[in-house]
């Protein structure tokens, strides 16, 4: 609503706009340090992206290296495994969106229904613990539990009379193991932001609803969810922008020769083909491609959100 007024104004007199800018001068002062930060630490270094179009040699610098146009992009797109790697990446991304993204929301809503304060606090302090364990640790604990060489879970499966399951070295199990680990590590941490959003809800709304005899479920549906809807949408758009950030370290630790067909993603490919070989330009070109995909998706998601009457992220 308010947005609409702003949109209309520039069409009106320019003097009105100048007046408004002058009236808001303190706002510009407030955002100035932040803008300066982004310019210096984000936009100035962006000239580094030019090396995607060069054969960059550290000792020649950004100006001295040879320009090669789209050579590195051509190499990436003609790589025989390119489509496979891209689809692996997108599938993992889709799984993240589908299986991980809703979990913190559901957890936050469940927790909001807890009336025993002690339980609530205890739960909150426990579920965000895993976020502080690095992937190295999580993957190695998982290995110990999942291995067919005496892992607890496989022992249990045998005890129940089933065949051992090849969790670690098979194409079938890579994705489930990956997503379960992601949920395990991040879900509790992810609830914090929704809890904050829920905490900002005016309690009077709940009281009014209770007076009207609204059930728990109805309160969740009509008060809590709408209150956190804008946070959900913003996080969703940002998550979509993160499309190709699937946690390099995590995937790399799970990756082995027996599951590479499904586990090789863009990030791990960059590592073997680019970073480990000191191929700066190739690595940057791949990163550039990834960013472009992310940008397109974010713009699309943001457009959709606005279409649906939401604020979006910009």
């Amino acid at each position, binding site marked *: 609503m308010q947005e609409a007024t702003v949109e209309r104004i520039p069409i009106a007199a320019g003097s009105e706009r100048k007046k408004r800018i002058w009236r808001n001068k303190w706002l510009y002062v407030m955002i100035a*340090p932040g803008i*300066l*930060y982004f310019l*210096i630490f984000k936009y100035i270094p962006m000239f580094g992206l030019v090396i995607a179009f060069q054969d960059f*040699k*550290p*000792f*020649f*610098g950004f100006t001295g290296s040879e320009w090669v146009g789209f050579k590195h992009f051509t190499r990436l797109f003609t790589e*025989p495994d390119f489509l496979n790697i891209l689809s692996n990446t997108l599938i993992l991304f889709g799984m993240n969106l589908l299986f991980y993204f809703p979990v913190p929301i559901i957890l936050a809503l469940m927790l909001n229904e807890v009336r025993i304060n002690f339980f609530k606090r205890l739960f909150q302090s426990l579920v965000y613990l895993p976020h502080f364990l690095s992937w190295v640790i999580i993957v*190695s604990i998982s*290995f*110990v539990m999942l*291995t*067919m*060489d*005496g892992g607890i879970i496989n022992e249990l499966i045998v005890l129940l009379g089933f065949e051992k399951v090849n969790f*670690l*070295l098979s194409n079938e199990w890579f994705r489930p193991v990956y997503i379960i680990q992601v949920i395990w590590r991040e879900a509790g941490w992810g609830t914090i932001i929704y809890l904050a959003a829920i905490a900002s809800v005016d309690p009077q709304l709940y009281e009014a609803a209770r007076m009207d005899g609204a059930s728990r479920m109805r309160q969740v549906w009509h008060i809590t969810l709408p209150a956190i809807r804008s946070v959900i949408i913003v996080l969703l758009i940002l998550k979509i922008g993160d499309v190709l950030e699937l946690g390099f370290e995590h995937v790399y630790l799970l990756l*082995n*020769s*027996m599951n*590479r067909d499904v586990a090789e993603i863009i990030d791990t490919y960059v590592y*073997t*083909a680019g*970073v*480990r*070989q*000191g*191929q*700066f330009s190739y690595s940057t070109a791949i990163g550039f491609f990834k960013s472009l995909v992310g940008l397109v998706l974010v713009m699309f998601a943001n457009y959709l959100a606005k279409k649906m009457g939401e604020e979006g992220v910009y």
Partner: protein
Amino acid sequence: MKRKPAVVLLSTLVALTMVLSACGGNSNKGTNATSTPNSSTSTNGNNDNSSETPAKPTEITIMLPLNVAETPPDTIKNEVEKLTNTKLTYQFFPADTYEEKLNASFATGSLPQVVYLKNQATFMQMKEAIRDGQFWEIGPYLEEFPNLNKLKPEILNNTKVDGKLYSLYIGRPLARQGIIYRKDWADNLGLEAPKTVDDLYEMIEKFTKADPDGNNVDDTIGLADRNDLVYGAFKTVASWFGTPTNWGEKDGQLLPEFMFEEYVQAMDYIKKIRDNGLMNVDFAGTSKTDQVALFTSGKAGVYIGSMQDINSLDKDLVKNVPDANASVHALVEGPGGNVSTWAIPGYNNVVLFPKTAIKDEAELKSVLAYFDAMMTPEVANMMYWGIEGVHYTVEDGKAKASDDKELTEREVKGFRDSVIGEPETNGQLEAYIDLEARKLAEQFVVDNEKVAIHDPTAALDSATFAEKGTQLQELINDATYKYMYGSIDRAGFDAAIEDWKSRGGQQIIDEFNAAK
């Protein structure tokens, strides 16, 4: 109340931007000033040095990877400074992100006077920069330094770039690999140390099936291996079968190891062990930590890898199984009585001298003089063993580490991997060993060298290999594991080789053969 810090911080930010713009104006000055405080001071020190006051210590800044938990304190450094009349700044950076630091420093001209690389792979990556003249060629100066001149020519040769020497090397025994096995289990079952690969198979089989620990429970496996085809079991076994080291010559042409029949035989061998459940079936995903745990917990009986791991393996094994007893073996005969083993090129790391930090010949010589001094017994022992009487004592002409292992670990070990040369050339003391098995291991290391097969491409270059060698090797590694796991057959493996060739492998073959 809340606004006050805001003002302070805001003004800080404004001030900082002014710093930025100020720096932008005279970027030359900025570059020099920040490269490291020492690069400018060192030049001064050097000037003084070359004129009339030789007593003034040379200032040297050195960058090197940190392979221990924390940066060592100055204890050893101070002693070395006294011995060499230098003022040293050792900058350690964690090994696992060392390349990032190296590249960032390199690209921004901030390398110090002395740069240790991380391993042979980083050396490969640096070759282009070396060719471009970014580092001092030190070959011509070596003969001026009596100790540096002792460095082994054949290893120096392996580190040359286009026939010129730019680096000093950190020497390593050529071939430390062998078997570490449960001697007590072998004795229980009446087995000798395996003479041939067939004996080894028998040992692995009996360790699995014949209840070697005598507890009447089927709870043991023969071999514990890990997700590493080189430093795990595979390469060592393959070399016993007669596979060349990395590359070999067939019909006058250099070809990669996996195009040799012996490589396939070795795959079949491991495959048979795995198929029969004689090893950890998940080895393709097993880390070194988990592999070691299999052995030290008393579950597995054979470990193939560096024999010098015996110390730590034995120590932890005995904690868990007090009457256990581990020993080592090597020189295992392949089919047809062939005895051979693979070898590294005799060094594990090199030191380079960037031209951006070392301004002139005189300065280079003063830095080389430090390394010359490092190759005297006093300095080499100081950096490798520590202070005599504190970190070690001399017994039978050998260095016996003190009982306070923690002290040595903290103060000395960080420097160990930076000592150039090897005991034969730098006069450093041999280790006094009290563990019998380790003595045996050292003997096998010497014997291994006699039958070691050298990599014929060690001193050769291939542009394609430098560009995509690692990526292509991944194809072969995958195919090797898949073959051993039975998910592809021989035809599938051959197809992987064809794939390797078509993606650039053939070029690598051609380039190495052209460089030969």
